[in-house]
């Protein structure tokens, strides 16, 4: 009898059930989309924050100090130690290799540019532009186009195995040279592939493929420093502690968290005779910005959940309120309060489950659209979200129905049947 009542209720009141179902579907869809976006926004914004450039710097362990003002190197270039270029792919062999989005080696060389009459000193920096590297089975492309996304080139980016260079904007004005011209560097004629604009020190320098700089310096395989761009976890109390004072288990936790400090530590392990340091301007600030944006999205998701819960409750309350007569009839025929309430709750649960599934998929689609249009990447929907969303849908539908059901059950059947509601 109970099952039949339930079945007939859905069969005969299609319009009303559809209305309540649509409300639940919409509510669940919005909740799903917002939760999915809020859980993934940290990762997405973290990636966007990488447009501030590298957050780690690897230098030789026994490094001498830099003597440079405004990007002009005032120290003889052969001074100091170097890292080995051959060790660089090992960066992709560290524990947090998937968090390392890219790295760029730098090798500054002091050179003389221009023909003998108007010769002047300048700094040439050798680097990777978009170098293809292989480590083990991993193949990846890395370089300044990846780690320094604000660099703009008027012309073309040189190939990493060519001997073409980029000329900094200010230097190109000073030398009155443009893309396509040839520049004399230490007496060699080198083709200018493009003019580089960075808004930084590189505007007054020449940027070349790494082998060119190594050849000019006469030190094959040498690299002065490496900029590493890594996705990191905002600093917390554990990150600020000195790893040397940590006990075994704590140390493991520190080592296996993608803090900027632990990634720096692992870079030092990977590259022999190196010292890795966080670039505090970038590393320290992304944590605050990230936590602010995450916090904001969390609070907004709460607001969205609240609004959709209210929408579902309102729809359920209206649907049940309209059925007072039915309740009156059932009660007049001798049904107990419990039986009536059970029927309504069973109906609500069924409705919540059916609309919940539809709503979940609609919400996932919505989240995908948001991810695609705003971040150009997929928003991953954790499978664990499905039971959570379903539970929320059932609970909210229950809660929304509860007050209405209680009122409907309490109503005197005589009045209900007379229509004096």
């Amino acid at each position, binding site marked *: 009898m109970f099952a039949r009542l339930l079945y007939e209720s859905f069969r005969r009141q299609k319009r009303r059930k559809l209305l309540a179902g649509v409300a639940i579907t919409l509510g669940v869809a919005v909740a799903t989309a917002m939760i999915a976006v809020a859980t993934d926004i940290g990762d997405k914004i973290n990636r966007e924050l990488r447009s501030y450039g590298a957050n780690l710097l690897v230098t030789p362990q026994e490094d001498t100090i830099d003597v440079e003002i405004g990007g002009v190197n005032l120290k003889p270039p052969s001074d100091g130690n170097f890292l080995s270029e051959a060790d660089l792919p090992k960066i992709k062999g560290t524990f947090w290799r998937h968090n390392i989005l890219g790295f760029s080696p730098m090798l500054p060389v002091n050179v003389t540019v221009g023909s003998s009459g108007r010769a002047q000193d300048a700094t040439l920096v050798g680097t990777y532009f978009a170098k293809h590297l292989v480590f083990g089975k991993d193949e990846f492309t890395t370089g300044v186009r990846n780690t320094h996304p604000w660099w703009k080139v008027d012309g073309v980016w040189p190939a990493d195995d060519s001997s073409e260079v980029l000329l900094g904007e200010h230097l190109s004005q000073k030398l009155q040279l443009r893309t396509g011209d040839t520049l004399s560097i230490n007496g060699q004629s080198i083709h200018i592939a493009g003019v580089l604009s960075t808004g930084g020190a590189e505007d007054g320098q020449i940027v070349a493929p790494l082998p060119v700089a190594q050849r000019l310096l006469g030190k094959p395989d040498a690299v002065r420093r490496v900029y590493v761009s890594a996705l990191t976890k905002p600093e917390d109390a554990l990150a600020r502690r000195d790893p040397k004072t940590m006990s075994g288990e704590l140390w493991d936790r520190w080592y296996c968290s993608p803090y900027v400090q632990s990634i720096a530590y692992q870079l030092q392990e990977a590259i022999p005779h190196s010292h890795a340091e966080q670039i505090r301007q970038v590393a320290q*600030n992304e944590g605050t910005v990230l936590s602010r944006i995450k916090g904001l999205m969390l609070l907004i998701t709460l607001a969205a959940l609240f609004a959709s819960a209210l929408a579902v409750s309102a*729809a359920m309350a209206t649907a049940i309120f309209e059925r007072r007569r039915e309740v009156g009839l059932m009660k007049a025929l001798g049904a107990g309060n419990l039986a009536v309430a059970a029927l309504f709750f069973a109906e609500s649960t069924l409705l919540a489950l059916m609309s919940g599934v539809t709503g979940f998929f609609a919400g996932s689609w919505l989240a995908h659209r948001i991810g695609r249009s705003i971040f150009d990447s997929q928003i991953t929907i954790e499978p664990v979200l499905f039971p959570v969303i379903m539970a929320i849908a059932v609970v909210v539908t229950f809660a929304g129905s509860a007050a209405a059901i209680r009122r409907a059950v309490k109503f005197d059947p005589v009045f209900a049947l007379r229509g004096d509601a």
Partner: protein
Amino acid sequence: MSTPSLAERRAAVPHTSMFLRMLVRAAVMRRGRAASALLAMIVAAAVATAMMNLYVDVQAKLRKEFRSYGANIVVVGKDGTSLPADALQQMETALGGRGIAVPFAYVVARATNGQSVVVVGADFDRVQKLNRWWSVSAWPTGEGEALVGMRALPVVSPDGKPFDLSFQGHTIHLKPSGTLQTGAAEDSRVYLPMPEFLAWSGIQTTTIEIAANGSAEEINGIVGRLSEALPVADVRPVRQIVEGEARVLGKTRATLYAAAILIILTAALCVLATLTGWVFDRRKDFAIMKALGASESLISGFFAAEAASLGAVGAALGFIIGIGIAAWIGRANFNAPVVPRFSVFPVVLAGSVAVALLSAIVPMSLLRRVQPAIILKGE
């Protein structure tokens, strides 16, 4: 009360008040339903107000957070010359309080062991405000104290003792107050207070770093104004900072926008569902009015006025609550309350009234086609 006195009182009341009376009585008599409709309205208006307020204010809040990345404009003398003595004042006038300008002066000096080291004159009070990421063990306080970069320390003062620096024959005796760690070029430098630096080296400010507030376009405008104010200098935006900020802010805004639209839409739908139910529930009132001879336009006017006043009251109450929610989110997340924007109120009011009217129109047009007798019979 007795019947004659009631009749007397009723006669004294002007007939125009009947409309108002019906409106008020309808709300009072069906308190439960009216309250739930009003509640839905209030929640929707509150959520909409909070989202709009946040959307407008969050950019300003986030911009402030982004300023902790430091300078986004750099001013240097053309061809490496020093800036004029009044450069800082000129920059500050041109900025008009929309940012902070910090002067720096650089020279290469020699340490006692003959090694070259970059020495910088700086205004420490301003530097602390500009470069909050600097990790400093102790800032210089007294005369003759210097802030020594982590990597410069082994060169100038390996055992932390006072040291000498010489530049063009002038020697200065300094005591390290603490160490500086940034992970960048600053680690290889020694920082001195500006007046001492000037007295020792005779070099004026060579670089001014500016952290200006505003969007990428506004920053470009400020750069233009600054270079006009100081033609001898080379003013350029720090693209790394300006572009990074624009990118992250743009994405956040877009996400917030999508979220706001979703939430406001859900809230509006909730109101639509509740109000439609409410109006539909009152089909008997509708039928009685019609049976008593009320014209179509009067009934429509009555329900429209009811919906509109519900919308207006809901919007007003919701606006106050929404401002509260926005302020709470601002305080919880940014440690600064979101400033209430009263310019949002007309939008919320118009939206609420429109949604309320819309929810009255749908059941009304359905009911209009039905004979009052059928409704009264209860079918």
